[in-house]
């Protein structure tokens, strides 16, 4: 009985070691994709990585296919979802190129949506884990819109 118990323990220990060794191959990644690299400050790509993905694209909110809330603000969908796209809460586009004051996105970020006939809470909402955007970030978004909201 004693020998059988130690045999079982040894087998279990060896299984654990085998699991440790058998992690599987690390994934193969190809070379840089065309258009990749570090996004320059002020570009739309930098806004995606600095703002939209970390602050907006949770699947609890604006992330993933069929997100809980319009619009879908994932890295590869944000541009088409906001530039020239109508807001659902007011008769404005979410981003009106060259006109931040007429862009519903900016009004939501500044909690000024009610003045334009809009509704709902400021974005990101006060209870958001990532917190709210600072003034410099909102001004960067406004500057990008003022420059024509390019997909750069």
């Amino acid at each position, binding site marked *: 009985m004693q020998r059988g118990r130690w045999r079982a323990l040894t087998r*279990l220990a060896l299984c654990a070691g085998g699991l440790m060794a058998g992690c599987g191959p*690390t*994934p193969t*990644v190809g070379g840089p*994709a065309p258009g990749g690299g570090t996004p320059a400050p002020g570009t739309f790509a930098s806004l995606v990585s600095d703002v939209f993905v970390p602050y907006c694209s949770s699947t609890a909110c604006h992330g*993933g296919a069929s997100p809980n809330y319009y619009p879908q603000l994932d*890295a590869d969908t944000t541009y088409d979802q906001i530039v020239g796209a109508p807001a659902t809460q007011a008769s404005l586009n979410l981003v009106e190129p060259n006109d931040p004051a007429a862009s519903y996105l900016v009004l939501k970020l500044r909690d000024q949506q009610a003045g334009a006939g809009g509704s709902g809470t400021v974005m990101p909402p006060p209870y958001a884990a990532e917190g709210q955007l600072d003034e410099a970030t909102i001004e960067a978004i406004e500057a990008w819109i003022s420059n024509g909201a390019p997909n750069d």
Partner: protein
Amino acid sequence: MTDTLVRRARAPWKLLLAALALLAAAPAARAAPGVIVSGSVYVDYWGIQDQTVAARSPRGVTWDASLKVGVDIHDDLAFSAKACASCHGIELEHMVLDYQPQSWFNVQVGRLLVPFGEYPERIDASGHKTASAPLIYDMGRMAYGEKTAFNLGVLPQPYTDTGALVYGVKWLGEKIQVWYGVYGVSGLKGANDVDWMAMRSVPYTDNNNEPAGGARMVMAYSSDPGSILGDAHLGGSFTAGRYDKAAKLGYMLWGADASFRVGPFTVRGEYAFRRTDLDPNGKYSYVLVDKYFQKDGFYAELEHPFGKYLSFVYRYDELRRNGAPLPGAQAALSTDSRIKRYSAGFVLTPAQAVFMKAGWEYWDPTDFTKFQSFHVGFGGAF
């Protein structure tokens, strides 16, 4: 859309009210037979000297508090609930009915603390000597843990999910106990990689029609009193499922853990691994060959007492991410990114159930700025 937003915004308040009701009932419950109440409070300050790192890290003061109530309904049935308060407000770590007809067969249903790894069993600040969680299990208090960087570790703990757990205990002789458990739960959620914010946001329901499953087994050895070779354990954990709404992207986690004591020294370590499928339709900064990425890591810890009131702890941990960075990730994140961390600290227990922790850490990532930091914290448990 607005009404929906407002309704869903109210939902967390219902959970807060439930947790507050639990807190209010606890003192009265404690006086009743068959009721066990326990809890802890801990306040920690994390100081980072490098201001560039500090600006992007969850440094400063945070608090952790927990209150657990266990009620014996009758010989075979118990109720247990634990409310935790920390960075993102009050949450329920678990709320379960526990049916215990036999030692080898028990069933828990409800909002479970999913058994993965050994660290969750010591997750209260009073249960571990280090001032911070291991990188593989950190929940939101690590540097470079943003969604656009590492997106936290392998499996932030505690991992709480909705489902059912079947578990039991078996003795092999008088000294070796085996604990085993098998479970079915809603599973992790996300769109492209796991979304940890969605995991702790209402509704606490499955986001797809495929439940996840898993298992854990632990062997524990109980030593003789006074023996140089003390208690030891060896454990293994596994869970897998699909995390996206369409149930097309899978994940798989496994882990191993062990500890043993030699005289006054306790040595413990854990390894955790996660493979996560990537959305093949995403726009990545690298050409996607294998459509998944891997995250793994481990920690190794040594602790020992120094006199009656002091204990020292030393830890080395690593977290690794291999694979294409996600769309929108920071440019610095490479396809083979690692964080190494060296930690040392002590715990001072001047009186029963009251403790102070202090610790120093040196962070050594491959893709980001190296830095050192310190923790100071005070807490108590009852």
